[in-house]
């Protein structure tokens, strides 16, 4: 497993979590890594301080690896959830966290970036899903004065203040 660490880190640098068989395939390893005791191998690996950045997550019965030097937990969890097809609940959770905990709206533009990385069709489909899902009736969507979309949860923010936050530019008055 030690031989694969540098590749795990490389994938992480590009925002990707990987399974060991995926790494093996990409680097052309003839023998697939044993998957039987992957947890044991991982525990063995991170006992060495130089590999302490390597993290493991189980998702849909597969073990994924990443380096915490390049990927934080929240990103890893979202990445895995999106890979499991849970795009809508992932976004909803992010919006609720932002509005209820951080006093913030969520810019629609985050959907352009990893781990969502949606094109305009995907974004529109997601907005439609949101609007149609009764579980998401607290999630609102609006546009800034510049025409940029943003989301917020009415559990944490009212429409007026969400608009203030969405249009706030910290450099408007002073640079």
């Amino acid at each position, binding site marked *: 497993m030690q031989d694969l660490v540098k590749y795990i880190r490389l994938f992480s640098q590009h925002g990707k979590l990987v399974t060991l068989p995926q790494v093996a395939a990409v680097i052309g390893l003839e023998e697939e890594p044993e998957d039987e005791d992957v947890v044991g191998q991982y525990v063995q690996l991170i006992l060495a301080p130089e590999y302490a950045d390597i993290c493991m997550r189980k998702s849909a019965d597969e073990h994924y690896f990443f380096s915490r030097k390049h990927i934080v937990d929240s990103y890893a969890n979202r990445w895995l959830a999106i890979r499991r097809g849970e795009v809508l609940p992932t976004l909803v959770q992010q919006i609720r966290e932002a509005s209820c905990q951080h006093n913030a709206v969520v810019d629609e533009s985050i959907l352009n970036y990893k781990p969502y990385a949606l094109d305009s069709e995907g974004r529109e489909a997601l907005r439609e899903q949101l609007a149609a899902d009764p579980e998401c009736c607290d999630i609102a969507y609006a546009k800034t004065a510049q025409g940029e979309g943003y989301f917020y949860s009415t559990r944490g923010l009212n429409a007026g203040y969400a608009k203030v936050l969405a249009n706030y530019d910290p450099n408007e008055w002073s*640079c």
Partner: protein
Amino acid sequence: MAMNYGGWAGKVLWVNLTTSEIWTEPTEKYLDYLGGSGIGYKILWDHHVDGQLGTDPENVIVYSIGPLTGSGVICSGRMTVTSRSPATPGHLITDGHVGGHIGPEFKYAGYDALAVIGKANSPVWIRIEDDKVSIESATAIWGKGTFDSNAELTKLMGQDAQVFSIGQAGENLVPMSGFMTPGGHAAGGHGAVMGSKNLKGVGVHGTGTCTIKASRDEMRALDDHILGIIGSNNNNVVPSTPQSWAEYYSSGSRWKARDEIKWGAADEPVELGEVAWNERNRIGYRCSMAEMYVGVEYTNKWLKRMGGCHACPIRCYCEMKVPELKSRFKFKSEYITNTCGGFIWGNYLMPTTAGTEQYALTATAGAYLRDDYGIFSGYGLTHHIFKDMKTADLFKHLLSAEEFADVPWEQWDNNEPEFLVDLYKRVAFPDSYPHENALGRMMGDPVSYIDIWKLDGTNPAIDNWNIYAESNVHLFNRSMRHALHHASECASQVGTLINVIFNRDPMCHSHINVVNGGLPYDILAEVCAEKFGEGAFDPVKWYTPINQGKVNFAKWCVVKNVLHDSLTICNWVFPLIISPDKEKNYRGDSSIEAQMYSLVTGDKVTEEELDIMAERTVQLHRAFTALEMNSNDLRRDHDVLSDWVYDIDPDKNFGDQGTIKMDRDDIQKALGMFYEAWGWDSETGIPTRATLEKFGLGYAADKLAAKGLLPG
């Protein structure tokens, strides 16, 4: 304090331009004031003359550094300039700050400060090569801009020297003027002081070192610690787009590196990619913030690399290669380097739209012209005044018909950056026009023109237009007639109080380096509550009444600001009470400055002890303000805000969501609490004798008492 400490060079260099005398005095007598602003204020106090003007020959101008300058500790490249400033009402004392490499060079030449008094008979520059100091003729460069002047001084002294000079604005005694070093580093407000002395510039070459008491390993460990908690410019600790290594992002963050941004004008274009907080060997890419000034498209075309000051890993200066500067504007060079306001002010003045070609050209051509002429804008104040008055169509009532016809208004109307070519010439050469050139004079001396043109709501010819009622003008301190600089719009009463007590815009980023750091509100509020008390930091545009936490926060910011300008380190990054490290729960370390100081000087101090030394300078500054204004009530005479601060958003009340509106009674209460926190008289805001004596400033108390200005 014996002079066997590391850090300080040990001498203050004096030059009398009237008598051509040159001498030194030991720094030792100033050590209680640390350096930088501290030395500047102490020297100015010792030479105070009632009613003196900044342009009087006997006014002293002090260029000073501190024990950390040039030591190699992170961001220790700055220099302070202190003098009476013609850009303030009554020519009160102000200090400006310049980065680059000039400060460290003073240290290596063996000086902690250069104090200049008197007036030369003809244009001169001061040449400093270690112990060899001479006054040289500047006749050959008088009349030239700072670019040519600095190039000529560098040619005369050699490439290892560091230089600075004034442009034509300073020569022509324009109050809103400053000096420039090569590389876009500027200090504003004292260009005319230099001009009045016939002092065109200064060149320094030192072959010495900065003595450091700690071992190399100790210094290295400190660097490692700082690199583990430092953010980008303004200590922004999150990237500007969602990135896998960061839990949070903020679109306003100055951590711009990402896949879409490159140093496109580099000989070999550099693709930056994402730069995670723990990639220490790529910190220099992290900031790359030219898109704030010219947009992404022109960043990728024009940004050559990032530059900056001595020992700074953050590199906030955008070195740009803009072919249009030569091809379209016929400037001598296609290169322009600057940061923040240096690029921004032009677009405060023109009716441009961000992201357009005009916007990018206005930013760069405007920077080139202001830097070359050595024009100061008072944190954009003159540019806001112009735009607001132009938009209200007031100039036709204020300029003579001849002058009005002479201004190429259509260029402004058509959004052509060429308008700046015409306008800045009017500012830098006020006397070169067949008419009064009131427009150029106003842009160069707004403090006087508020009275001359009666811009205070008492001129019926302009429908009683009131500059103090116009939020777009950004004039914040009504008495000092200076612009806001991270004031009530930022951190409510905290920013307000910080913007009240100085004589010019405060240039304080201590609060910004926390509250604009990019972390979510709940984390920042928690950090501020831990450090300053509950409720110290309000949510965006949703303010609460004054409380002790906010007062503590504001006082801490001012102390750290003056500390940085005295040590000297960069207040555009420090203090670091937040960090990008999730493992540290995003906490930084506010004792970094004390650690730096202890290691470099060998004088082991705690954070509290060092802060007390910086506070001494704040106390002296406040006593000095009362003395210079001959005021026994600074609340009434100095700490007065413009009406718009209270009257903005007429449909909202203070405390409503969505407004930065302040409340008159609340601010009066806040001032009282602020005064008490400093040990000033709670009514008049003047330091009491007990406070001054506590800081070893009994001499200041005596002087105020003798003038009848001391409270009680």
